[in-house]
């Protein structure tokens, strides 16, 4: 790939500013392994113009805002194709039409706005059921009615844009694996032998640095919904000791109320770091309790680097329609070094409230793997350590055994969350740091698109 083909050139729809849209394009660029260079016309153009490097096929797409005005009942899933490949993307109710002129493509609707709507949980903002115990159930999602609860719409859109502008998806993860499975275990109950058995299981499956989410709340910070162990006691410390001896990553399993209380979060992080003796970077809220955007904003301000709370308690699925880590956009601070990695599959999904048959489980996982592998995504799993007690939780870890075995056969690498995020952050930094916005001369310079006159109305003056 030439140097110019390491850049996604995005001509924004006007002089700007477009901070959130730029963030979304950078996320697309990071998924494609491309730095994004922005250009700004001096007058509102009303559309994005995108191409890769200094030439080649281009994409024109109208700009319709940040997706904030989309309605949950007004979005539709559409199929797009490029060559022989097809993807499912999300657009507004007016429908999606794709027009090809030679290698150049024009669409009639904004596909970036809906990405913002998905990543900022726009759907949930319109569905008050999110506030039921602070949970949002997959069964309440409009995407469930579309049959798209497990569809990685963000990556599909990025992959399609990449295919249009001739930027194939790069291998994204360690050992040149194209996709990854991240394994995390919530430590809700401490019992004799749970942790050693879990470590042995994960070692057999060669899961590199698996992640363990440990509670660290005090009695005052806890509720009747919280695990009852106290990390500062000798008995808890003794049962958790094998984790300190093993090569694992430890994150905070924030207490029931901590998702909305920075004081609790900070105290629990400090308590866990004191026990662990190392920095704690990751977080997952107990019960997946979550409030957008403040839970992430507080976690970022408390020094966490990622959150894995975004999941459904009742069904497997992708709560932000995203099957890979993405950087959080803080409404006060812009793009911040805080990563959101949604949890797609939880052990209880297959056993509670109804037990899935093995056939249904296998069919679902097989389809999910195909979806994630074709967009070079990452699948985050969440198993509770206490369910390794096979007498009380028959079959719960057999399911994980099958998932990890099938994933290995399908070419995925398996690790903890931290390892997957290391790969992602490297890509993000490469894609963003080296690529400042176009600022040329005295402001009268033009971005040379003349070799692609079929695609352009004329050169754009660069205004900043």
């Amino acid at each position: 790939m030439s140097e110019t083909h390491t850049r996604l050139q995005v001509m924004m729809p006007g002089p700007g500013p477009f901070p959130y849209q730029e963030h979304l394009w950078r996320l697309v660029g990071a998924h494609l392994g491309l730095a994004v260079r922005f250009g700004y016309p001096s007058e509102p153009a009303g559309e994005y113009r995108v191409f890769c490097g200094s030439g080649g096929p281009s994409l024109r797409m109208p700009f319709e805002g940040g997706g904030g005005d989309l309605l949950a009942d007004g979005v539709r899933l559409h199929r797009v194709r490029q060559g022989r490949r097809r993807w499912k993307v999300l657009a507004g109710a007016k429908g999606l039409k794709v027009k090809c002129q030679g290698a150049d493509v024009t669409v009639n609707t904004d596909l970036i706005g809906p990405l913002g709507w998905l990543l900022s949980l726009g759907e949930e903002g319109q569905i008050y059921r999110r506030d039921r115990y602070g949970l949002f159930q997959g069964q309440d999602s409009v995407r469930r009615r579309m049959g798209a609860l497990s569809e990685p719409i963000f990556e599909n859109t990025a992959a399609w844009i990449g295919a249009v502008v001739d930027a194939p998806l790069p291998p994204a993860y360690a050992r040149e694996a194209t996709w990854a499975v991240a394994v995390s275990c919530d430590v809700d109950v401490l019992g004799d032998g749970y942790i050693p058995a879990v470590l042995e299981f994960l070692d057999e499956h060669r899961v590199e640095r698996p992640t363990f989410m440990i509670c660290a709340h005090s009695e005052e910070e806890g509720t009747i919904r919280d695990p009852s162990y106290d990390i500062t006691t000798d008995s808890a410390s003794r049962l958790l000791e094998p984790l300190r001896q093993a090569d694992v990553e430890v994150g905070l399993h924030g207490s029931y109320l901590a998702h909305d209380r920075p004081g609790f979060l900070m105290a629990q992080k400090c308590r866990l770091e004191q026990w662990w003796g190392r920095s704690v970077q990751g977080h997952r809220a107990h019960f997946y309790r979550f409030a957008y955007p403040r839970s992430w904003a507080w976690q970022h301000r408390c020094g966490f680097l990622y959150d894995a709370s975004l999941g459904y308690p009742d069904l497997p699925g992708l709560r932000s329609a995203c099957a890979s880590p993405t950087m959080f956009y803080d409404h006060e601070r812009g793009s911040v070094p805080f990563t959101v990695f949604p949890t797609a599959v939880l052990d209880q999904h297959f056993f509670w409230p109804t037990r899935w048959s093995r056939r249904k489980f296998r069919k679902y996982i097989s389809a999910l793997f195909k979806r994630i592998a074709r967009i070079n995504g990452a699948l985050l799993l969440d198993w509770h350590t206490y369910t390794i007690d096979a007498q009380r939780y028959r079959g719960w870890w057999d399911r994980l055994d099958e998932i990890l075995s099938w994933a290995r056969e399908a070419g995925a690498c398996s690790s903890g969350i931290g390892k997957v995020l290391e790969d992602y952050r490297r890509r993000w930094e490469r894609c963003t740091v080296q690529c400042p916005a176009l600022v040329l001369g005295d402001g009268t310079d033009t971005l040379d698109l003349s070799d692609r006159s079929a695609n352009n109305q004329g050169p754009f003056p660069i205004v900043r």
Partner: protein
Amino acid sequence: MPRPVYSSKGSVVMEKDVCHIQSFAVIGLPVTRHGVSLIRHVVEAGLRPKFGLIIAQRDDQLERSSGLWSVPEWWEKAAEGWSETEPASESGAIGEDSVEALYRVHRVPYVFVPDLNGQVACEIISRGAVDAILLAEGPILREPILRASRCGVVNVHAAPLPEYRGNHATRWALYHDEPLCVSAHIVDKGIDTGPILARQHLPVMRTDTLVDVDERGFKVCGELAAEVFAHAIRTGVPIQPQRPWQGRTFKGQMPREFIEELERRLRDQEYSHYE
């Protein structure tokens, strides 16, 4: 003395981080359980409003009051000659939720005004030179009245701020299974987005129904109002600004099915934070 400074977007930024007052007025609806609880607690705590402004419901109320609108310092003589037993208005409509009746019992001077955002109300407040205004339930306030006193308008919202803004926020917090509290804040142009003065825990008991929680909410709001104004007069109250992203604004009515679910959850004692 702090002074609210309004940003271009209407949010309040205080010059100092403490709200310190000497005098205050009360404005609001004529019939309101929430408002009556606020006023009663404040007055019974020995804190006397300089005067009250009540939004008129009928023409005769305006006719009775309009003569006072332009009278300087009308509040000094307004309560003279009142009898606590006489009906407050010609219709005699005195109920336990009547602000007018409460004012008469406690001999707080009051006057009816057409609305709170209009010129009449603003001029009376400005002429009264009060440091702060207590909002005893009312419409969304706009800039003239928000700027009419030195420290602005204080509202007591029956839910945790900044997290739960807007309508039926107590019930939404309950639905969210959060510990309840009520919050006193300075009103700005947004909905419950102004700087926070104080919060007070709102306990929920195992035997409570939704009505019980609402009733206790009125009481705790009143207690907090009295506490905040007492502190603001004695020592000043620290001000904690809110950020827009720190909360969610609930609009419209809570759907009936949600209310029924809440009632069932309280009946089944499913709340996580009982006293």
